């Protein structure tokens, strides 16, 4: 296959990533959210592996492997377990209704593309055009964190943001140095564990995972 085909496929995967981001924004059920998160990770793995293959950047294979293991297999599995254990797979009611969220999301995507335009012109990689998408993924994930009330969707939002950042790194400069990536992967893992401990604690204290209860903690 020639480089143009690769580029086409990478662009397709990038579009998929963005689509999944929107899907996550509109998904009401936690189980669905986790599945979407796993799919996002899969798309990321595929695109990273493809970039590694087409440009000969071998360390990206490791990145792809880490992404596959952590974000496609380990974490979704772990989240499913938590959901089952805490029995919280009900409809998530977002703070702002879904259509409005989607509209804000579209505005953010336009903003991100605008922002990425001058930067991607400076970048010399084969997939520079995808920077806008990566940035949009970050912002959409952030938006998801803001609009969700429950703790688990927020953590998934946080991880999705990390996905976007990872994608941005591969698209602008063929990924970060492996050491940094390993560090980030470790951080994400630790964050998930710490946050899952918090899930149980919050649940135990407030009898619910709804974060509005935490307002009580504010000092008057």
């Amino acid at each position, binding site marked *: 296959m020639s480089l143009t085909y690769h580029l086409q496929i990478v662009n397709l995967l990038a579009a998929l990533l963005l689509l999944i981001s929107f899907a996550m924004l509109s998904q009401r059920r936690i189980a669905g959210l986790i599945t979407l998160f796993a799919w996002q990770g899969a798309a990321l793995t595929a695109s990273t592996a493809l970039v590694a293959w087409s440009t000969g950047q071998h360390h990206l294979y490791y990145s792809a492997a880490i992404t596959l293991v952590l974000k496609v297999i380990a974490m979704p599995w772990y989240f499913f377990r938590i959901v089952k254990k805490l029995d919280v797979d009900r409809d998530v009611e977002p*703070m702002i209704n879904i259509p409005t969220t989607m509209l804000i999301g579209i505005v953010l995507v336009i*903003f991100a593309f605008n*922002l990425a335009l*001058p*930067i991607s012109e400076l970048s010399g990689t084969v997939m520079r055009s995808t920077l806008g998408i990566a940035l949009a993924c970050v*912002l959409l994930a*952030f*938006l998801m*964190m*803001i*609009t969700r*009330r429950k703790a688990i969707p*927020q953590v998934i939002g946080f991880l999705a943001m990390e996905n976007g950042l990872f994608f941005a790194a591969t698209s602008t400069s063929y990924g970060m140095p492996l050491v940094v990536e390993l560090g980030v992967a470790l951080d994400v893992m630790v964050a998930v564990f710490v946050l899952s401990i918090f899930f149980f604690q919050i649940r135990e204290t407030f009898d619910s995972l709804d*974060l*509005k209860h*935490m*307002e*009580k*903690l*504010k*000092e008057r």
Partner: protein
Amino acid sequence: MMATLSLLPPDPVQWAWGIVLFWLVLGFAALLLQGSQHLLTRLVFPLGALGALAIAGVGIAGMLLPASAVILPIGLPDLPFHLRLDALSAFFMVLLGGAAFGITVYASGYFKSMASGPLALLALWYHLFLAGMVTVLLADDAYAFMVAWEVMALSSYFLVTTDHKIPEIRRAGFLYLLIAHVGAVSLLLTFGVLQGGHGDYTFDTMRLAEMTPFWASAAYLLALFGFGAKAGLVPMHVWLPEAHPAAPSPVSALMSGVMLKTAIYGLLRVTFDLLNIQIGWWGTLALALGLITALYGVIFAAVQSDMKRLLAWSSIENIGILLAAFGLTLIFYTDGKGALAALTLTAMLYHALNHAFFKGLLFIGTGSVLHATGVRHMGHLGGLMRFMPWTAWLTLIGALAIAGLPPLNGFVSEWLLLQAFLMTPGLTHPYLNMVIPVAAAIVALAAALAAYVMVKFFGVVFLGQPRDPALHEAHEASWPERLGMLWLAAGCVLLGLFPAQVIAWLAPVVRLLSNQTLVNDGNWLMLAPVSAERASYAPLIFFAVVAVVVLLTYLWVRRVYHGRVRRSDPWDCGYPEQDARMQDSAEGFGQPIRQIFEVFMKVERETPDPFDRKPHYSGASLDKLWFILYEPIARVTNWLSQQAGRLQHGRIQWYLIYSFATLIFLLIFTTR
């Protein structure tokens, strides 16, 4: 580095550093001895006192030897501690060691009744405090200086809050910490200006940096503010009257006697050593601030009813006198009057040394009274001379010394300072010529009022009749306490009796700063600062005459009167009985001063009803500056933090929106 440390014979600076290490080890060893109260008081504190004595010895050696420096292998990478011991540091080390020895010996007796757990912690902070102060004196780069300065501030904060279970003490400690840190920030900025853009913070490069008058003035003003906050310069003095009563007495003694002097040291170091140029108006400013501080301090000292608060205010007064002397030195120095600058500087250093001794003595004296009676308020004391004669007589020496009576040491330095003031007609600046005699009058007034304050302090606490029946149970101070007081009292007497020797000994310091020394025109017996015709003082002869006259009078009275004693009821002047309530009280004694200077005070009084069977009286004269200056600042700060507090909703979503908005803003900002 170890090789240089073990070179024989080591430089004084390495000895000094070794003693600092010894104190650190001793402090942490105290933590291990937590279980044994006995070992802490019998071993740790006496060893610490020996360290202080050794520091004084190293200081005496350092004043005679040329300056020595050492670079320590500790600190940040590429930023080692530079230490240097020159005559100025050495002089202040003698001051520190001399006063701290007596105070620490005293402490070994004073803390005997303390539980061993808190005592171990206190011993740690105490020795850290000593080590920090010595390191401040030794530091030869801004980094080491600030680290040591902070060690000193923080350890003394923990010492002040020893009784942290009492809310007032926590409050006093917080005030102290706050002002100490405002000052420390100012010092940090001083060093920032002094390094002059080189990025090198050793004092050596600062000495070489060429400063424009503007930046030099900026550095000086920042230093004056920063060191002034530590020294208790009006209006940054508010922490002193709060922190000193809160701290245990040996700690107050150390803070007032020694720690305040590190600020004076810093001011001298920055102004005369680190800065290349000195400007005349700096001196005028310092003189004015010093005089205000002296007068303000002594007025408030006169109206206090709490022993330690009174002494704290008196410390403010003495710092004011020191600062006024500093200002006058600068004025003479910039006017080219080297000999007069040397005279004033000598007076200032002498007074700093004296203050360390007599203020230390007075503070530990109040400590013994506090231990014996459990009260600080003078309205509940009185007549203690009968129950604790050692404390009373030794405190009397301190009180006479601080009151500036010959032949004790307070007289010598104040007399020298007044001599310097009388020399101001030689100045070339006409306005200063006219104004400075007024300054001399204010110094004289402050000195006279200080004597008034001491009459009140000693008279109300030790003389008359006990105001409380429980005072009959008061017990005398223990032996270590007495020894500590004896040492400081002996210092007061000797510094008073041998001024000519002390001044000769001070010469290297004075030469280092003002390039001249004070020439004693008299001889070993007689001190004559300018010329023997003009003014001279021979304390030994004075003392001998006083002693002989007293002795003769005593013998004469014994011989003439006691030969024909007749016992009968005295005429009672219409008072058939006298009780303790008829005596002058602390408030009563200060009343004239309060009347005259009421503008500075906010007086709160509660007077009893004339028909009340059990009359109750209370009065407090509060510092008006607190209400004019500090409370508005506190209100504004509070309001601002409340406004900032509105950002805190307690909802995670809001916090996320904050970061989201910031992110968007930064993205727009950077790509625009």
